[in-house]
Structures are given as C-alpha cells and as structure tokens.
C-alpha cells in the first residue's frame, strides 16, 4: 500500500525561506527558496503516481482571504501552528465536517491531536478475537454435520483427524443432557466438560492433537454467543434507530443488522463465517468450513435485503449500499466501532475545556498530562511574547519565570492546583523551541498512520490526543 501523500504538503509564510535546520525534504541546494515548493518537489519524487501542489502563503493569510480553500480536502494536517491560527482553522474544519490532525514536535516532547466529529470503522482489526463457532446455538447444518460422526467407531487414524469442533460439540451435548439442558458456566462445569472430552481420546500413548485443541477451545468456544456491548451501543445509537434520507451506509447497514438481530437472528448477530485453522484432514475441514461460510452468506443476504428495503424507504439510491459492503460489514460486525470527537476550539475555551480530565490526571504522580499543560503554556507564551520560552540564551532565566506565570494562569482556569515540581518548566525552557529530527520523525510517522486510518476507515484512530515523551520513550492518550 502506497501511503497517500497530502495534496498540499505545506502552507508556509509567503516569504518563508528556510535558513535553519535541513530536513529530508529541504536540501542544501535549494537554500533560500520557498519551503513549500522545495518540500513538494522532493516529496513527489518518492512516488511518481502522487500528484502534489503547494501554496506559498501562511495558513493565517489563507483563512483571511480564501477560507473555502480548506473545504476541498478530505483531511487536513497542521504542523507547528500557533494557537491564534489553530483555533479559527479548527472551527472552520469542524463546521465543514473535515477531519483535522494537528502534529507537534517540541524538544523531546511530541503530540498528536485528532479532530473528527464522528468516525465509524467497520474493519477495526482487533488483535484478539474469539472465533464465532455458535456451539451454544448451533444452526441446523452445523448440528447435522457434528452429529454425523460416531467417534467411537472411527479408526485411530481417522479419529485423530476430525476437526476439534466435532468432539467439542458432542461432549457439550452430553454434558448438557446430564445437566437438564443447562449450559456450562462455572469453571467446575468447564472442567467436567474437559474431562468428558479427554474420555473420548483414543490414542493410548499420547493425546490426539484434535482433542488437545478441543480441550483448549473450552476456554474461548464454550461461552454464550452475545452481541458485544460496544456493538449494542452502536445498534441502539440514535443515528441507527432514527434513520433519515441523509443517513450514511454505515448507519443504514447497522440498522439492517439490528433488525436481523431482533428477527431472524433471534438475538444474535449474523454469523461471521470464518473457521480458525485446526488439525483435520482436508475433506472434513473443507466441509465444515463450507457449512460456516454458507450460513454466513445466508445471514448476510438477509441483512442486504433489509438494507435495500431501508434505502428504498429512505428514498436513497439502491447502489448506495452494495452486497460486498454488507458482506464485509457482517464479517466484521462484532468489532465495528465508532468514535466521537470534540472541536479543538472548545478544548481551548476555558468554559468548555475538559478541566476535570486535566485535574484528575495531574493528581497522578508522573502523569504525562504535565506535558499537555507545558505545550498549552508554550502556546500562551508564544501568543504573548512572540517567541518560544528559552529561545534566546540571554532570556533563559527570565523566560522560566514568565513561563511559570503562563502555567499558573492556565492551571487556575482549569481550577487545578500548582504543579509539584519545577523540573518540567526548566526542561521545556531548555528546548527553546528546538525541533529534534528524530522526535519529529516519530510524530510524523504516527500522524501519517492516523491519517491513513481516518481516510481508509480501517483500524481505530487515537481518541483524541496523544502525548509522546521521548525522554522515557512513552506515550499517553487523553480525550478532550
């Protein structure tokens, strides 16, 4: 996958020529030229398929003279931007529904802030997910397949190559018969079930691989299939229940899934339809795989039909939702996700700031919230003095005092007590606005990935502020 490059890599000051640090996209041959121009040229040589453009103006100028400029973009990334420009920019993009990523590198500290009103994700790709085997609610084809084996009659060679779902299912049936149809819940129940499975083992020398797998599967496969809470919240969300003619495919499909759950699904989500790898001969594995796959196709078809009906009733074109989209949605529905964010302008407004989050975090010793406070205080300082604290050697001591005053003003606005140590102020003033390449590269790499997540709607983005401390090589996430 080629990373999409931003359309406008940089909007610099009209007259901004670079005379300072070189970066990978600002080489020595072009010293004195426009930063935006040189960065664009060097960026484009990375991938001949990427188109790029630059505007040799400051964001402030653009906001004043051509405010609609930003509206034409899928996503905007802002770096090294002052509070005075950030606030109107964030309002503008928030109102237009365009996601904004603000990335910052300051000494050994970095931050990423993501502003997006509502972000829905179908493919969140969670690291750990239990297989959807439905042993507690077997559908007819699964039942028929699992019941078709008389394990005791099989020869050892074949016995050891029956997919573990079968002995697990059969042992579960036996256990439930012994317990008036109840489903194993406690660890005692599950141990009994494991013993039942063990009894079926035929090989006198060692445990058969498929039986070992069946015993291991008790941990994750013997559980009541439910709609996960996060998914329930989405299905019960106002946007899902009250569809409008403007509803997006995500919400319409979610409603179709909800209707499936309430009707055909009898309280369960459409079957995911994937079978994990397991010891088996090819023939039986493929048969079982087809059984799961067919059932999930059936379920998805119902959801698709329901989605089509919804489109019709909402007077939306039929092709707004394709069968492939619904299939994919059903396959990932147990990990679909939604994030709702906040506008940076409200974070920066004393009346609407999330002061309790700040205060609560600051009570923890060594919370990285302290760096958030520092970054905000730097903004304040810059706004007041038009320089970074510690930027000039002869001002260092004075700046420390000024910076402390910026910090206490901010803290009192949030009704927070004073910071316990002066160490952080001294460290921040030491940086004097220095940008260390490796810290920028870390933040740049991470921010690029967040941009890809937002554009592709895959994986979950940062919600919504990341602070990076390269001293301890740690990060923390806060929601504002």
């Amino acid at each position, binding site marked *: 996958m080629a990373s999409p490059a931003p359309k406008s890599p940089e909007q610099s000051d009209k007259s901004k020529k670079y005379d300072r640090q070189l970066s990978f996209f600002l080489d020595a041959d072009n010293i004195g030229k426009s930063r935006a121009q040189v960065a664009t040229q060097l960026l484009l040589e990375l991938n001949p398929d990427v188109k790029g453009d630059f505007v040799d103006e400051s964001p402030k100028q653009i906001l004043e003279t051509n405010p609609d400029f930003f509206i034409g973009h899928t996503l905007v990334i802002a770096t090294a931007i002052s509070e005075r420009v950030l606030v109107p920019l964030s309002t503008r993009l928030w109102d237009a529904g365009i996601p904004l990523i603000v990335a910052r590198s300051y000494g050994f500290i970095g931050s990423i802030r993501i502003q997006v009103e509502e972000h829905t994700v179908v493919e969140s790709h969670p690291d750990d997910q239990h297989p959807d085997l439905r042993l507690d609610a077997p559908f007819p084809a699964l039942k028929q397949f699992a019941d078709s084996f008389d394990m005791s009659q099989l020869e050892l060679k074949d016995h050891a190559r029956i997919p573990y779902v079968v002995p697990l299912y059969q042992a579960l049936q036996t256990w439930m018969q012994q317990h008036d149809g109840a489903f194993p819940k406690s660890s005692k129940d599950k141990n009994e079930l494991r013993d039942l499975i063990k009894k079926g083992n035929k090989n006198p020398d060692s445990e058969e691989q498929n039986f070992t797998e069946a015993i291991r599967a008790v941990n994750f496969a013997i559980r009541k299939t439910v709609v996960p809470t996060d998914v329930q919240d989405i299905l019960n969300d106002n946007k899902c229940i009250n569809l409008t003619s403007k509803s997006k495919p995500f919400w319409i499909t979610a409603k179709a899934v909800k209707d499936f759950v309430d009707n055909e699904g009898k309280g369960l989500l459409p079957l995911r339809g994937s079978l994990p790898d397991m010891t088996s001969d090819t023939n039986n594995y493929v048969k079982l795989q087809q059984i799961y796959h067919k059932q999930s196709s059936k379920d998805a078809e119902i959801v698709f039909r329901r989605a089509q009906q919804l489109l019709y009733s909402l007077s939306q074109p039929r092709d707004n939702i394709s069968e492939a989209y619904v299939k994919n949605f059903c396959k990932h529905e147990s990990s679909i996700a939604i994030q709702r964010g906040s506008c940076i302008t409200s974070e920066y407004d004393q009346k609407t700031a999330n002061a309790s989050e700040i205060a609560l975090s600051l009570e923890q010793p060594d919370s990285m919230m302290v760096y958030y406070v520092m970054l905000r205080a730097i903004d304040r300082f810059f706004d007041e003095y038009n320089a970074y604290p510690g930027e000039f050697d002869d001002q260092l001591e004075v700046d420390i005092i000024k910076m402390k005053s910026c910090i206490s003003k901010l803290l009192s606005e949030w009704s927070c007590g004073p910071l316990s140590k002066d160490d952080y102020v001294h460290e921040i003033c030491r940086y004097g606005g*220095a940008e260390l390449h490796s810290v920028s*590269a*870390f933040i740049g790499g991470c921010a690029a990935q967040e941009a890809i997540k937002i554009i592709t709607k895959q994986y979950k983005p940062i919600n919504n502020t990341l602070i990076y401390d390269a001293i301890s090589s740690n990060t923390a996430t806060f929601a504002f």
Partner: protein
Amino acid sequence: MDVAVQIKDAFPKRWCHLKKVLERTGPFCHPDFEPSTDVTNHFIMTTCKILVIGAGGLGCELLKNLALMGFKDIHVIDMDTIDLSNLNRQFLFRRKDIGQSKAEVAAKFINQRIPGCNVTPHYNKIQDFDECFYRQFHIVVCGLDSIVARRWINGMLISLLTYDDDGDLEQSSIIPMVDGGTEGFKGNVRVILPGISACIECTLDLFPPQVTYPLCTIASTPRLPEHCIEYVKVIQWPKENPYEAAIDGDDPVHINWIYEKASERANQFNISGVNFRLVQGVVKNIIPAVASTNAAIAAACTTEVFKIATSCSVPLSNYMVFNDVDGLYTYTYEAEKKDDCLACGQTAKVLEIKSTEIKLQQLIDQLTESYQMKNPGVTTSINGKNRTLYLPTVSSIEEQTRENLKKNLGDLGLENGSEINVADVTSPNTLVFVLKVASESMQVE
C-alpha cells in the same frame, strides 16, 4: 571537508536546534552530561562512529534520521539488493536502483542529500566481518527482519567485552546496541548494554515465530511451500483474478484455487508440503510491512542512539513495545538479564541429559529446542584430541559424521562431565557446554 566548510558558512543556523539540547543542561540529563560549548565540535559530529545493520525499511529511516541528528560517520551493512516491492517504504531507492546493493544506493543518497554526512556502505553479510571490524564502532543500531542475524550480532558484541584483573567489566569495551523491530502495526525498540542489561538471547522467548516472506524470495527463489502460496496470492491472483473479487480467506473456493495453483508451482520447483491447510494459514496470516510503523520505530531508535551518544537525556531502560492498531499504545519496561543466558551469562553452561544412552540426534534436538538453535554442529575433545561428532554445514563432513547421529553418547566417548563445543548460525562464537547426567545412578562407567 570543503563541502562541510561551505555549508557551515552558507548555513549558519543549521544546528541551532541541536545546540539547545547539547549546549544547555536540564533536570532529565544523564548524570555524565556536560554541556558542549560548540555543537559543531561535538563528539557526534567529530569522532562518534555508528554502525547501522540493515538498509531496508528500518535502515533507510535510521540512516536519514541519524544524518539529520548530526551524526557524520555512519557505516551500513546489508547483503540484499533492491527489489521493486521495497520502493513503497524504502524511500532512498528509486526504480532505476532495482537490482543494486541496498547499502550502496542508500549511502550514496544520504551523502548527496545531507551534506557533511559520510555514510560508508558494506554490501556484505554481517558474518563477513570479524571482531576488529565491529570494535571500531561506538554504537550499533539494528534494523533487521531476521532473529538469527540479531542473535549473531548480539553474540559478537558480547564477545568484544573485556574484563580487568579483578574480573570487573571494562566499561570501554561495551558497545551499546539499539535494536528496532516491526511487524505490521506492531514494533519494539530496545537498548542493550552488553554485559550489563538484558541481551537478545536473555529474552529469546519474546520473539514470535516469523511468518513473513520477502517478495524477491517468493518471486524468484522459492524454497518453502509457503513461498509458493505467497506467490499465487500476491502475483497470480491479482493477474488472473479468477473470481473477480479480492481473496476471501474464509471462502473455500478461493482457497482451493490458490491451493491448486500453489501446488503446480511447488511441483515446478520440486517443493513438497503444499496442502490445503497450509494455504489457508498463509493466506490469512498476512503481516505486511507498514511504512509508518518503520518510521516510528526507527525514529525512537535514533532518539536512543542520540541520547546514548550525548548523555543529553537518560536512555530508555530498556524495552519499548509499540502498537497502533487501536489508537496508539506503547509500553516501556525493563527486560531482565538472565544469569544463565547462553550469550551473556557468566556461569558455565550445563546441558542436562537423561543419560549417556541417548542418541547424538536427541542431544542435537535438545539444543535446537531449548536454545532455539538452527542446525548446531558438535565437537568434543577426547584424551586431548579434537573430535567432530556432527557438522551439518560442510557437506563432505556432514556425510562422514551423519552415522554418529544414531549412536549413543556413551559410544561416542561422552560421559558425565564431558565438555562439548557447539557451533550454530545464531552465534559467532562456539559455545561450551558441560554434560550433566540427570540421575547419577544412570551414569555409565
């Protein structure tokens, strides 16, 4: 040098950012930190010599980062050539560079783009160099995708350690190693002070089995059945698009098509072992190299190199994991040094065996299982005479010694307390083990 002087004049503020952290002290500096008076005379710009191992996804980022952080004398080793599939993330390479040495092209690019920086390429394997070569560096940074190579360089740096007459480690012999690794959206950074903190071998159980294959291997030199499957998946499927859809790992029809094509390819290369199940496993476990993960991990590695070289901040202690699948998560902890570590442990290595009745093959299996060796060779010394018991790496000797695999250790002259010398690709050094029979009563006289 002329170029550097010119740049210095034309570009007076070039290092103004570094000046702040190197010419000023702060509360989080290493206790040894001394503010520099002139950053352009700093150790990192004058004498510090860095070795980067690997010029791939991480390596390209590392070279760029180190050069922009002020390091001037950088060496890079990579045995690979540039492949089309590298170009999406290994940004020092262009289409015209395909087929050329990664190390050479990367070095040339950095030297041109970042004036004053001198990168020396080595189009070699790490095993081509000896202790003299490695001893010249102040810090080694690894951007490798191979665990075996990591273990080898780890063993090399440990073998460079020297001890004084009191048995204390000589600080000047320590070459810190910063190691980065990535897999999809996950990555890790670690700082290893050989002889002091946990080494690669101490934490060997942290590595998951490797499951990704370079495209050049699957396209031109397949060896494993997995390579044949990958070939069909990434090359044949998009070309023929048999069902006019993307591959669905849960659709048996799709898997079956791949299975058939992969079998054909395997037959063509006389590779056995392609079966339906393996196809399924390979198709569903795709871990692509992600450019942004490489960027983040290489950047964090570079910060650590910079901190170690300048003491301007304390280094990471000593392991950071990174994952940006769900938001962005990092976790930092101190991996512990193992007293009985095969590479850095100071104790004699004892290999406990059931009895001397076991076959040599069983002994070798024990070595590969317990210490994750790849194909160890074993020699011993009997009555002062060296005897090769098994040597898999030289085919003529392998043939001569193969018979020994079926023999009892006792029949080969080994007994309780015997020393064996084990050589393996995972270490540059031969390891000495003392055999200890688990139960004394079973000891054969």
